[in-house]
């Protein structure tokens, strides 16, 4: 068998990985919806993103008269 004579020139570097810091990674749910519900939700999203929101009503009690 061929050998690589100069396989290692330096010292071993023992730590192949840093110390562990465990953190759970929960599986996210996939709960199916009906096509109708998805359509309604998608339209809601589209409208929420696109319909200009109305300005907040002005309170008559705090409104400063000019």
């Amino acid at each position, binding site marked *: 068998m061929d050998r690589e004579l100069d396989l290692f020139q330096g010292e071993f570097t023992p730590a192949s990985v840093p110390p562990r810091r465990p953190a759970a*990674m929960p599986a996210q749910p996939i709960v199916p919806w009906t096509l109708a519900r998805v359509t309604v939700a998608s339209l809601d999203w589209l409208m929420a993103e696109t319909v200009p929101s109305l300005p907040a009503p002005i309170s008559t009690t705090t409104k400063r008269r000019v």
Partner: protein
Amino acid sequence: MSDIAARRWLFLILVLMSTAAAVDKLYQVLRIDGVDLFEFLFLALFGILFGWITISFWMAVFGAFARLTSATLLPLKEAPTPSTSRTAILMPIYNEDVARVFSGVQAIFDSVAGAGGFDFFILSDSTEPQNWIAEEVAWQKLRASLEPDARLFYRHRHRNIGRKSGNIQDFCENWGSHYDYMVVLDADSLMSGETLTSLVRLMDANPSAALIQAPASLVGRSTLFARIQQFASTAYGATYTAGLAWLQGGQGNYWGHNAIIRVRAFQQHGGLPKLPGKPPFGGEIMSHDFVEASFLLRAGWEVWMAPDLTGSYEEPPPTVYDHLKRDRRWAQGNLQHARVILAQGLKFPSRLHLAMGIMSYLSSPLWLLLLVVSALEMFVPAGIVPFSHVGQHTDLALSVSQETPLLQLVTATLVLLYGPKLLALMVLLADPAAAKAHGGAANILRSVVLESVFATLFAPVVMLTHSWFIFNIVIGRATGWGTQTRDDRALPLWLVIREYWPHTVIGLLCGYGLYRFAPQSLGWFVPLLLGLVLSIPMVWITSSLKLGAALVRDNLFLSPSETGVIPVLKRAHQLLERRGAEAKILDYRELVLDDPVVRTLHLRLLEEVPPPEAEPSPQLLLLVEAAKRRDTRAFTRQDWVTLLSNPEGVGEAARGAIGG
């Protein structure tokens, strides 16, 4: 209404109106003698497929507009100060060519040197013991050649649970909490230090961003097929990614690698569930990236694309055969998204991304069905007899009363199919530096024409192959997630004939059938039939390295990686050449038994990431006894894994050998 909302509405309206107009035009033609069942089916299929190519067309129009008006494609600013964040660069591998992997990692490591804050992880899922030990040795050699405090780690996972996404999840669960961000690479990915630093600064300044994708340019291969792909990726890619980025904004997608991810967001929301049922539709989620992006968006995070960050690269498959082999897995992975697309709470753009992924493969059988239906329709007696033809071409027949609308539909289809290429060409020529990097205007024009011819001939081959894949998936034949061929290779002719004779035979039979029974329609099918009939020579010739090189000399299909120098790519190639010139070890597995240095290294790595505990089995004892005598010729892959995963067994086998 915000700018992005206006763009999305405009896009939606344009797609719907173009499709509706085309469907209506076809309906007006078909209704003349009443719509029969075949015609109704034809109309439905036409509507779906026309809508599909309309999306690509308008995406390209938006992209070209954005590029030509220098629109802001990524409205995020980079942090002005140097980052104090910690980022892990992850290279998940699975039985890959070890020299290539480590050359790539080292090139990226060198490129980012001095930036600070980056740790590198080679996350091995390799199941081949030869690869496993070779990776350990390569890691140790590389590690020893770097500064003592260089942070380049190697982890071998003993159980390949969840494939690549499981590999990344294992990192996140064990070491992710050390880091603010992680950059996920693929085994053939390269990223420049500058791009990595920009990504980190973008994440620093935008705490609501969970993921930023840096689109990868295809580079580094030399076969003709790969060079055509590389040219198309860099010449057309800028327009495509601009359109996508301009429309998706912060609700983008993840392409599985060359992206930076906020670890905390991913730990909390990126965990994939197992789908109920068996593969191919149930079980582990194969194409994990789209689903992970949709989960992050669902949780309220942003996912962006940075189309102007160059310095992100990957290599294309070298041949048509390898390209389609990869597509088999992607087809299954994307079709599996049918189980995810209606999931509760996903954002509308995520559903669109998933739907477009499914349609990339489903469009093939739909196209095939459209052709079959149109062929069957030819045998239905026509109500209107007098026929005309296009110009002097008697083989391009048209019913007299249908001539104008049908020609309009054909023209519209051609515009939709080739328009995106022309728009991308316009964008490319408008940028003198980019045009020069592709060989100049004249060479670009020649390359675009030839690429379009190739793409036209290639399309029916893809259509037939994808349809076959989908048929297999639907009847429940699952595929594995094997190693990809990433090296340049010219395909042997026997392999090409074995794989593509069905395409040729189908092309010839259909051609004969049309000639015999419907000669007046043969002309419409010529491009399609030609692609099928020529599939064997086309696949074989485009795998040629010599032709790839010859066309470089002829200035065809030039891309920036060939006309200029990309430092990280050049460095990776130099390192790979150097590794290739080094002495080859034939059997790394036996080296564990024979070489005390390799054995000590292996045992130390087993200590740090121990394999799952297992009782010493009679099988292990037999293996140890055989290994002591060096009688390992009959060892299977699993035998080697069993032996090499057991520290006591390795030690005893080695001692026996030394004693003997």
